[in-house]
C-alpha cells in the first residue's frame, strides 16, 4: 500500500474500487463536491424507471416496476367476501410486502427482513389514506357481498429506494386491474351466493364486461438522502447504508402532501432542505405520471 498524499488520504495510491470499499464516505464526498453521483447522475435525478404491466398472467392485475436495479413485482387477486357491519357498502384492500432472500444478501430465510413490515405498513397507510381507490366501487351487494383485493408485492432485487419502487408497482398493478365478473348462484341452503366466474359454469353472469377500477389522485414518491448540505435523490443500497438520513416525500397528482417520512438520521432537516426535497418530488411526479401513462397506453394497443 502507498503512503498518504498531501490530502491525508490514500486516494492517489489505491485503485478506485478498493478506495470505494475502504473509505466509502470519502469516495462519495469527492463525487458530491462535483454535484454528481458515482453512476454519473446529477444529484437531483432519479435512476432509470420502467414499468411492465400484466407480468403475472393468473392475477387479476399485476405489474413489474424497476427503478435502477430495484425490482418489485406486484399482483392483485380479488375474492368475494361479506363486508363488515360498520361499512356495509365498502370493499377492502389488504396490502402485503415480502422480501424473499433472493433480493439481498442481508435477508436470510427463517424470519422476515427488518425493513419488510415497516415498508408494508407505510405502503398500506399511503395507499389507503391517499384516496386513490374509492372502496365503495368494490361493493357488489350492499351488506352482503363486496370485493376484497389482496395486493402482494414481492421485492426481487433490493438496491435502495424500496418504498418508491413498491408504491410505483402497486399503483401500476391497480391501473392494470380488471375486476372479474361475479356469478350469482344458489348454494346448498337455498341462499343466493355471489362468487367469481367459474370457467365451466353454465349459470348466468350478472354483468358481461370486466371493468377497470377508477383511480383518482394517484400518489408518487421520491426518496432522498441528506448529507451535510447535499441532497441526493433516489439512493442505491450502498448510498443508503453510508448516509443514514433518508427522507421520503409522497405527493399526489394534485401536489398535495400524502406523506413526509423522515425517520431520524444524523442530519437535521431545516426548512430549505425540506422545500428542496418537495421540489424534487414534484418533478419526479411528472416523470412518473408520463411513464405510467405510456405503459398503460402500450397495453391498450395490444
Amino acid at each position: 500500500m502507498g503512503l498518504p498524499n498531501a490530502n491525508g488520504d490514500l486516494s492517489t495510491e489505491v485503485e478506485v474500487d478498493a478506495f470505494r470499499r475502504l473509505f466509502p464516505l470519502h469516495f462519495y464526498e469527492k463525487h458530491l463536491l462535483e454535484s454528481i453521483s458515482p453512476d454519473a447522475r446529477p444529484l437531483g435525478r432519479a435512476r432509470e424507471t420502467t414499468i411492465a404491466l400484466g407480468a403475472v398472467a393468473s392475477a387479476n392485475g399485476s405489474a413489474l416496476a424497476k427503478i435502477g436495479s430495484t425490482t418489485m413485482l406486484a399482483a392483485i387477486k380479488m375474492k368475494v367476501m361479506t363486508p363488515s357491519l360498520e361499512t356495509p357498502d365498502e370493499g377492502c384492500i389488504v396490502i402485503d410486502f415480502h422480501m424473499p432472500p433472493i433480493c439481498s444478501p442481508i435477508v436470510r430465510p427463517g424470519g422476515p427482513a427488518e425493513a419488510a413490515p415497516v415498508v408494508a405498513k407505510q405502503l398500506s397507510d399511503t395507499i389507503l389514506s391517499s384516496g386513490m381507490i374509492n372502496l365503495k366501487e368494490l361493493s357488489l351487494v350492499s351488506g352482503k357481498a363486496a370485493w376484497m383485493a389482496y395486493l402482494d408485492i414481492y421485492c426481487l432485487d433490493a438496491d435502495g429506494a424500496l418504498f418508491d419502487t413498491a408504491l410505483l408497482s402497486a399503483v401500476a398493478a391497480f391501473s392494470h386491474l380488471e375486476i372479474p365478473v361475479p356469478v350469482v348462484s344458489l348454494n346448498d341452503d337455498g341462499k343466493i351466493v355471489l362468487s367469481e366466474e367459474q370457467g365451466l359454469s353454465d349459470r348466468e353472469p350478472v354483468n358481461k364486461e370486466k371493468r377497470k377500477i377508477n383511480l383518482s389522485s394517484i400518489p408518487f414518491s421520491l426518496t432522498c438522502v441528506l448529507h451535510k448540505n447535499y441532497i441526493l435523490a433516489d439512493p442505491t443500497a450502498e448510498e443508503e447504508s453510508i448516509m443514514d438520513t433518508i427522507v421520503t416525500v409522497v405527493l399526489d397528482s394534485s401536489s398535495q402532501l400524502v406523506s413526509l417520512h423522515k425517520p431520524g438520521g444524523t442530519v437535521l432537516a431545516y426548512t430549505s432542505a425540506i422545500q428542496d426535497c418537495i421540489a424534487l418530488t414534484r418533478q419526479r411526479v411528472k416523470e412518473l405520471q408520463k411513464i405510467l401513462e405510456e405503459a398503460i397506453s402500450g397495453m391498450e394497443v395490444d
Partner: protein
Amino acid sequence: MEVDREDGRSQNQLRPLACSRNILHRAHGSASWSQGDTKVLAAVYGPKAGTKKNENPEKACIEVIWKPKTGQIGKPEKEYEMILKRTLESICILTVNPNTTTSIIVQVVNDDGALLPSAINAACMALVDAGIPMKHLAVAICCCLAKSGYVILDPTKLEEQKMKAFAYLVFPNSVRSVLPEGSLRVEGEPIENGIITSVTHGIMSVADYFYCLERGRAASVKLSDFLRRNLQQQSTDSSKAG
C-alpha cells in the same frame, strides 16, 4: 379563531405533562411519561457488550423493543420500533462506546392519542436517567390538521380519528447558551428548528405542513422548558441525598 375542543383546551395548549425517572430499580435507566391520559413507560439496559449481526461494530448500537398494551406484536409495532431506533441513534453519541448495544424497552400503559411522541419523550428521559451520552434531547410533538384548516396540538385519540391529517414531529431541544445568538445558527436558522423526525398520516397541502412545523417548533420550546425544569429538579434532589 375559536376552536371547540372537547376537553376545553385551546388550539395550542398541551395536555398536563408528568415525567418521573428512576422508577424501575433493575433497569439502568427508566422513565414514565404521561401527556394527559396517554402514559408510556421506558426502560434502558446498557451499554452491553457486542453488537447485533448486521450492525457496524465501530459504533454503539441501539435496539428498541415496543410492547403494546394489548394484542400481539405486528406491523405497526415494528414501524414504531424502527422510527424510535433511528431517532434515538441520531441523538446519541455513538462513537463513545463502540461495539456495544443499548436496549430500550417501551411499554404502552395507556394510549389516548399522540402515542409515538410520548414514547419518544419517555425513551429520551430514560436514556438521560441511564447516563447514555447524547448530543441533545429529542422533543416530540403531535400536530393535527382539521378539515377546515386549523391546526391543534397534542390531540386525544378521539380528536386524532376525526382529523384529516396529523404529523408527529421531533425537534432538538431549545438551546440556552452564553455564546451570542448569531454564532449558533445553521443556514440562518437556530439549531432547534431542524427536524430530527417527521411522520405524517393523511393528506395535507404543502403549506399546511409548513404551518404544522411552525406550531410544532413553538410547542417544542415549551416542552424543552418543562424537560429542563424536570431534569434540574431531580438532579438537585439527588445531590442533596448524596
